[in-house]
């Protein structure tokens, strides 16, 4: 029975992905892509990988959807309808043959590898040493902490890159005002934003706290926080801060810097990112809470986009 569910789900995933890519209208493509992100979240639930499902649903259906919708709206305002125009037949045939062959080879390679949760047996005995039970969090923040540290800096780097796209003279202003021009819409979205932001904060804090023993963690929590901030921003409940505001910059770098500091302090305990014996859980939770705050703010600003000249800047000095 579960095989039937998985099969139908996989067929729908392929269907929504194909339509999302090849439908003419840009908004239809984005709507199908959001459905694709939702279904991918279910795929991870089908694989019993709940930690990944939390991240995929929050990011695939939430943040990426908003990102693409806002990008399309801005392109449309510039007269670019982003409809997908075809390419020469010869190119299409060649690409089709190449990609089909590639898929056959890839599928054959994948089928030759028996699915195995081997590393689960390697990780399991090490978990009591960390004092947490969620093995994915254990891998993310202890056994492969190096990747996660670099990733938090990649996020910061992506935001710096997006900010560097600010038009001349717009720096260090605010991103384009995500608020709504239409008054009734703004009222409805505003009240919803006022309700959603605190709930998103509580949900995110729960995800971080539960993340050490149950599915959850800093990334999923950060994405939920980013979603709450974005809805509040679009509803006009909160204004987006100017990019040179000291408090904002502190929030952005807090997570990565604390992570790096704890990592470097670990050198005394034997090596980079090594947690002293008894302190593992306390350090992990500290890293997770600071990281979740930075990820939430960074993702929200990544979606809001680079500072724009048109954005209203009530306090030009950016004191905020």
């Amino acid at each position, binding site marked *: 029975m579960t095989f039937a569910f998985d099969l139908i789900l996989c067929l729908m995933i392929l269907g929504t992905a194909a339509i*999302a*890519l090849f439908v003419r209208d840009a908004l239809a493509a*984005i709507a199908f892509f959001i459905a694709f992100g939702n279904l991918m979240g279910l795929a991870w639930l089908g*694989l019993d990988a709940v930690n990944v499902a939390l991240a995929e649903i929050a990011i695939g259906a939430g943040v990426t959807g908003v990102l693409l919708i806002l990008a399309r709206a801005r392109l449309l305002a510039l007269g670019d309808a982003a409809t997908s125009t075809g390419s020469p037949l010869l190119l299409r045939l060649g690409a089709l043959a190449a990609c089909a062959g590639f898929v056959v080879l890839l599928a054959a390679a*994948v*089928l030759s590898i028996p699915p195995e949760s081997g590393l689960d047996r390697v990780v399991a005995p090490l978990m009591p040493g960390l004092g947490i039970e969620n093995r994915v969090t*254990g891998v993310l923040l202890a056994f492969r902490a190096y990747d996660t540290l670099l990733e938090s800096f990649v996020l910061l780097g992506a935001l710096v890159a997006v900010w560097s796209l600010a038009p001349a003279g717009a720096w260090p202003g605010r991103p384009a005002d995500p608020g709504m021009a239409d008054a009734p819409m703004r009222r409805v979205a505003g009240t919803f934003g006022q309700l959603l932001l605190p709930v998103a904060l509580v949900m995110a804090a729960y995800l971080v706290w539960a993340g050490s023993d149950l599915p959850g963690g800093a990334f999923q929590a950060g994405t939920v926080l980013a979603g709450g901030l974005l809805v509040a921003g679009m509803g006009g409940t909160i204004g987006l801060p100017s990019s040179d505001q000291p408090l904002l910059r502190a929030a952005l770098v807090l997570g990565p810097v604390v992570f790096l500091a704890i990592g470097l302090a670990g050198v005394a305990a034997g090596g980079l990112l090594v947690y002293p014996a008894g302190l593992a859980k306390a350090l992990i939770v500290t890293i997770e809470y600071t990281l979740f705050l930075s990820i939430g703010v960074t*993702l929200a600003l990544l979606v809001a986009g680079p500072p724009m000249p048109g954005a209203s800047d009530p306090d030009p000095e950016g004191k905020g």
Partner: protein
Amino acid sequence: MDLPLPVLLSTGHLYAVTGAALVGLGLYAFITLRHPLRQLLAVNVVGAGIFLILGGLGRGPDATDPFPQALVITGIVVAVALTAFGAAMIVRQAQTRAAAKPAADDNENPAP
């Protein structure tokens, strides 16, 4: 009530093969689609396919491997950060293009 459905593939393999198909689909779309926003979607589909392969192969008969899960979570977050950067670049490019030829802007672009 067990429907006599033939179990051809293990769960892990089914999702992994779907991932492989997604990678091929995304690659084909990336090659043939002209508009940058659509190519950004194609890159995301390729990424999702690769993550599904990783996740599928980590799904043993009894447990799900935490390692691919951690890699995929990191991958998803980095993918959304770079999608944001890609989208910002596409919008910025459209703005510079629109600013470069304001006079011929209205009649040249087809009405949506």
